[in-house]
């Protein structure tokens, strides 16, 4: 196999893996946008918040330790225990559900029927508020997401040797694929299949789609909008947690994590704001596109660093030629 082709395939595969993460973040946006028309700018911060909460719980950190110490003059930081990873994930899920409930109860319940731009502004406010809360709760220093928690439950890391060897034997060139990426892809795939099944085949899922179509009609058959909205924010919170874990394991849990929201934007423009398959395919296209472009054109001809803007340029092209995105829900119009 010619070397250039082998490299290209490897870059392609790595792009796919990066795309999976973009897709996950975009998915969180789509869920909320579809059901409530809210463009949730805070989705990235939710991923950060979820990841920080998970790490904090794992390490047995006392939440709001700074605040408590400042007020009571105490000096507590840790409970002195560590929490089993699975339990920590479960607790984090509960925290995310509580967050969904609070967001609905204290913010969006009072903004029902407002202009989309007002709802959007509210999510910007929410993003900064949540960032502050995360900071106050868990401290602002960079933390490694314990890929191996104290209990020995590890996220797989490093090169996948099996792929390396097999491809080396087959093509004379071993592909470098990160184990974590493989796990992330599998988890993302399961998550997506689960979400689609939920939306398609369960009563609450159907109600969720009904609300997305027509709020008033959903109300008229006795669906509680409030409940459905808490549900979608919880699901988005769960998706954020998964994205946060994957991203955090890759590059540490730090505030820049919240910026992945910005990467999800071009994905949404590509895939359409209302389509779950769109978010997935859009994420993969952007992931692969930016890596391949950098490898084939960017680095050799443009002096590199094209990954920063490629996604936006692609999204812009889409906006011009296909504004509803690849899979944007067809607007049903009867004549």
């Amino acid at each position, binding site marked *: 196999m010619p070397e250039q082709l082998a490299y290209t395939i490897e870059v392609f595969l790595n792009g796919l893996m990066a795309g999976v993460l973009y897709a996950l973040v975009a998915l969180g946006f789509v869920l909320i946008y579809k059901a409530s028309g809210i463009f949730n700018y805070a989705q990235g911060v939710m991923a950060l918040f979820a990841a920080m909460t998970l790490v904090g719980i794992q390490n047995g950190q006392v939440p709001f330790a700074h605040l408590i110490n400042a007020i009571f003059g105490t000096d507590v930081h840790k409970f002195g225990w560590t929490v089993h990873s699975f339990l920590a994930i479960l607790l984090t899920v509960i925290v995310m559900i509580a967050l969904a409930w609070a967001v609905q109860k204290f913010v969006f319940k009072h903004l029902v*029927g407002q202009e989309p731009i007002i709802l959007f502004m509210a999510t910007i406010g929410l993003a900064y508020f949540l960032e502050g809360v995360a900071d106050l709760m868990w401290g602002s220093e960079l933390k490694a997401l314990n890929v191996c928690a104290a209990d020995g439950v590890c996220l797989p890391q490093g090169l996948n040797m099996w792929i390396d060897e097999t491809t080396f034997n087959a093509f004379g060139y071993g592909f470098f694929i990160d184990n974590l990426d493989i796990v992330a892809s599998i988890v993302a795939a399961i998550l997506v299949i689960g979400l689609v099944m939920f939306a398609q085949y369960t009563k609450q899922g159907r109600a969720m*789609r*009904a609300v997305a*179509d027509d709020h008033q*009609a959903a109300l*008229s*058959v006795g669906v*509680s909008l409030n409940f459905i909205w808490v549900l979608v924010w919880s699901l988005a919170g769960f998706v954020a947690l998964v994205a946060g874990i994957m991203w955090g394991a890759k590059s540490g849990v730090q505030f820049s994590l919240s910026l992945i929201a910005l990467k999800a934007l071009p994905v949404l423009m590509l895939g359409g704001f209302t389509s779950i398959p769109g978010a997935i395919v859009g994420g993969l296209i952007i992931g692969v596109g930016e890596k391949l472009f950098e490898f084939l054109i960017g680095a050799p001809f443009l002096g590199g660093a094209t990954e920063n803007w490629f996604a936006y340029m692609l999204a812009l092209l889409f906006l011009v030629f296909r504004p509803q995105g690849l899979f944007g829900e067809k607007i*049903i119009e009867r004549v």
Partner: protein
Amino acid sequence: MLDDTDTAAVQVDNVLEVNNIEVIYNHVILVLKGVSLNVPKGGITALLGGNGAGKTTTLKAISGLLASERGEVTKGSIKYRGEPIHHADPAETVKKGVVQVMEGRHCFEHLTIEENLLTGAYTRSDGTAAINADLEMVYDYFPRLKERRRSQAGYTSGGEQQMCAVGRALMSKPETILLDEPSMGLAPQLVEQIFEIVKSINEEQGVTFLLAEQNTNVALRFAHYGYILESGRVVMDGPAKDLRENQDVKEFYLGLSDEGRKSYRDVRSYRRRKRWLS
């Protein structure tokens, strides 16, 4: 249709009582200025009137949908089986057995017809078997829906969507259906067909109907009792038979006067003149 049924006999037991309600939108727009009506159990009651008379507002006040449009019942009361419901939320009211079919059908466009119907059963907790039985019942009333069960509702015809909306309401196992303007935008034949089905649902399932209609002619043929609403007030009411024979109704709403059909504006100025003269 109902000329020869004894309308007095069905008016004994009122399931729904609207007592002198006033409705205000956005805290300032006064739309209903004291509307009272009684809906007898097992009957079909018509709420008639021209554009903007307040029919939809009255139905939404009953179903609780008003709140989501920033509307509010500020005076009076609405009682269902004696219990006040004018501050209840729509889900509670549906559970009590009152469901509204909204004007303009409002099907869930991206859901299939069958999914639309199943969503109608959202508040029920009596199990899949009972729900499936009712699904078959709806398909018996609307065979057309069975043929289109797998189609996205947004791509079905206006008539099919109206059937879907009524079927969806039926799926909640209601005692009372508030049906808003079922004839809107449908060909006369189809209107007739839908009303026939409403009538058989009423007779066979014992579902009580409160029906808002501009199409006075059809509505009064199928209803037992009628109320006529004008700018937020009830201006006339009586058994459907009497209303159909009433000279004013004939002239203004049925378009049967010698001078031909009058426009709503004529009606209003006529009323003003009449009030002024009397």
